[in-house]
């Protein structure tokens, strides 16, 4: 427990002034613009939008600027802003099969209808520092353009799932309410909808580590990246005034369909099972990690024994949110003076008793 303290206003105000000064840095350098962050630090913006749970590039870029590039702090800022906006409704589910594809790869099938499309990727780069980037005056050549335009492509699972070798997506009841963990507290066991929402908002580092743990044997599911696709999709919603769906805009998303080793039971023959990842923007690592953890969290419904951390719903879903985690860890900085005083007294008493007991034991020994 911590207690409220008074005073220190001047020191706090000066500390904030110092922080603003540090954020601005050397005045001889031009101040960074939010538009530059949105354009040139796009992956940071995507991460903040995904975990901040709000798709708005300008606001996410502003949060990154304000937080001096601290993404978890930026996520917190965006989440806080989110609470000031009214909710005007929910979209129709986005159709990722109709995606304006900018990247689509599959590690399970080489010859796919539509082919493997690399898009803008860090894969196949040597991860050597590019010192040319130190020069901000250099020209960046225009990318090569093909003679033909990229067309939308059907999802890999939809093309290849027909033999029954691949588990079909779970459909649920049409028109059933969709869980919203921002409105109602999570209940366990959590449905797939609540789990996917929590994972989508979840911290990338946490999910990456958990996904990695499943690969290393802590809940092994033998995954293959069935498909990773990235691109833009239209968002449609049904405004209350109209009663029919209209397009309101377009967002970039990354999707991962992870194919894993077998499920099946007395009725169903063995088949590949699937995990799913979806994030705002270009966030392949996040989408893949999410898909691994989603599959691990399905262990119970697939009749597997849940013994590893990644399979434990409460462990994963209660600890995936970095705003909550950061808040609880960082609250330790708040004054705990009263708490600590009582602990001090306790440890002093214990030491007194310990010393007394030892003395008595020595006397007893000497007497014998």
């Amino acid at each position, binding site marked *: 427990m911590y207690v409220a303290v008074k005073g220190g206003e001047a020191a706090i105000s000066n500390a904030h002034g110092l922080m603003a000064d540090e954020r601005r840095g050397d005045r001889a350098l031009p101040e960074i613009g939010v538009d530059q962050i949105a354009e040139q630090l796009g992956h940071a913006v995507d991460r903040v939008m995904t975990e901040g749970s709000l798709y708005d590039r300008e606001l996410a870029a502003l949060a990154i600027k304000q937080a001096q590039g601290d993404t978890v702090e930026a996520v917190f800022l965006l989440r806080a802003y989110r609470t000031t906006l009214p909710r005007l409704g929910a979209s129709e589910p986005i159709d990722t099969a109709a995606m304006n594809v900018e990247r689509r790869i599959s590690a399970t099938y080489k010859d796919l209808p539509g082919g*493997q499309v690399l898009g803008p990727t860090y894969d196949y780069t040597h991860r050597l520092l590019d010192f040319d980037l130190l020069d901000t005056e250099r020209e960046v050549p225009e990318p090569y353009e093909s003679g033909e335009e990229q067309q939308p492509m059907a999802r890999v699972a939809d093309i290849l799932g027909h033999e029954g070798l691949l588990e079909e997506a779970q459909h649920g009841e049409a028109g059933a309410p969709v869980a919203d963990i921002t409105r109602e507290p999570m209940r366990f066991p959590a449905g797939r909808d609540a789990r996917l929402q929590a994972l989508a908002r979840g911290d990338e580092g946490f999910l990456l580590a958990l996904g990695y743990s499943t690969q290393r044997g802590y809940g092994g599911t033998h995954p293959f990246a069935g498909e990773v696709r990235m691109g833009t999709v239209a968002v449609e919603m049904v405004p209350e005034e109209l009663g029919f769906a209209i397009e309101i805009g377009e967002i970039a998303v990354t999707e991962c369909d992870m194919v894993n080793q077998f499920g099946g039971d007395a009725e169903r023959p063995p088949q590949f099972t699937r995990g799913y990842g979806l994030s705002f923007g270009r966030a392949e690592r996040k989408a893949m990690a999410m898909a691994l953890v989603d599959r691990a969290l399905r262990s119970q419904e697939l009749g597997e024994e849940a013994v590893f951390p990644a399979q434990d719903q409460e462990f994963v879903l209660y600890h995936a949110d970095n705003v909550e985690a950061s808040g609880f860890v960082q609250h330790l900085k708040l004054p705990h003076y009263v708490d600590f005083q009582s602990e001090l007294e306790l440890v002093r008493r214990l030491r007194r008793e310990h010393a007394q007991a030892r003395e008595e034991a020595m006397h007893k020994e000497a007497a014998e």
Partner: protein
Amino acid sequence: MTSPRHKEAEQEERRHWMGVLARASVDALEEAWQGLETQPDHVWVRRPESGMTMVRGRANGNGVPFNLGEMTVTRCALRLEDGVMGVAYVQGRDHRHAELAALFDALLQRPAMRAALQRTVIAPLERRRREAGEAARRRTAATRVEFFTMATGRGAA
């Protein structure tokens, strides 16, 4: 008399232009608005208001729906002098974008103006959008991996 079929076609047409208006840039809409002979007055039914829409996805792309996260959206509704109501829901926080989209939505509902506006505003906006994406789609297509089968040295059997 309006048949249900006719109503459906009208709704589809409106659905289409509202989508085009929502995805147009505010600059392009402003230009189109200033290009009109007259800019009619309107009264607000609902002033522009920025909020959020919860974006939904589906597990594995086509399974059970779930809430992915929100996006900013701005809406408004207005009425022209003749009583026609225009509505807009557009991504982002730009009030002017919503206002212009609602104004055009109202004007496009006037049967006398529809064909002309479809031709002079909606079609060019749509074309502009398509063209803007063309280079990106060509660049994406250029990153498609071509697999080659190793030649065996023997001719086809």
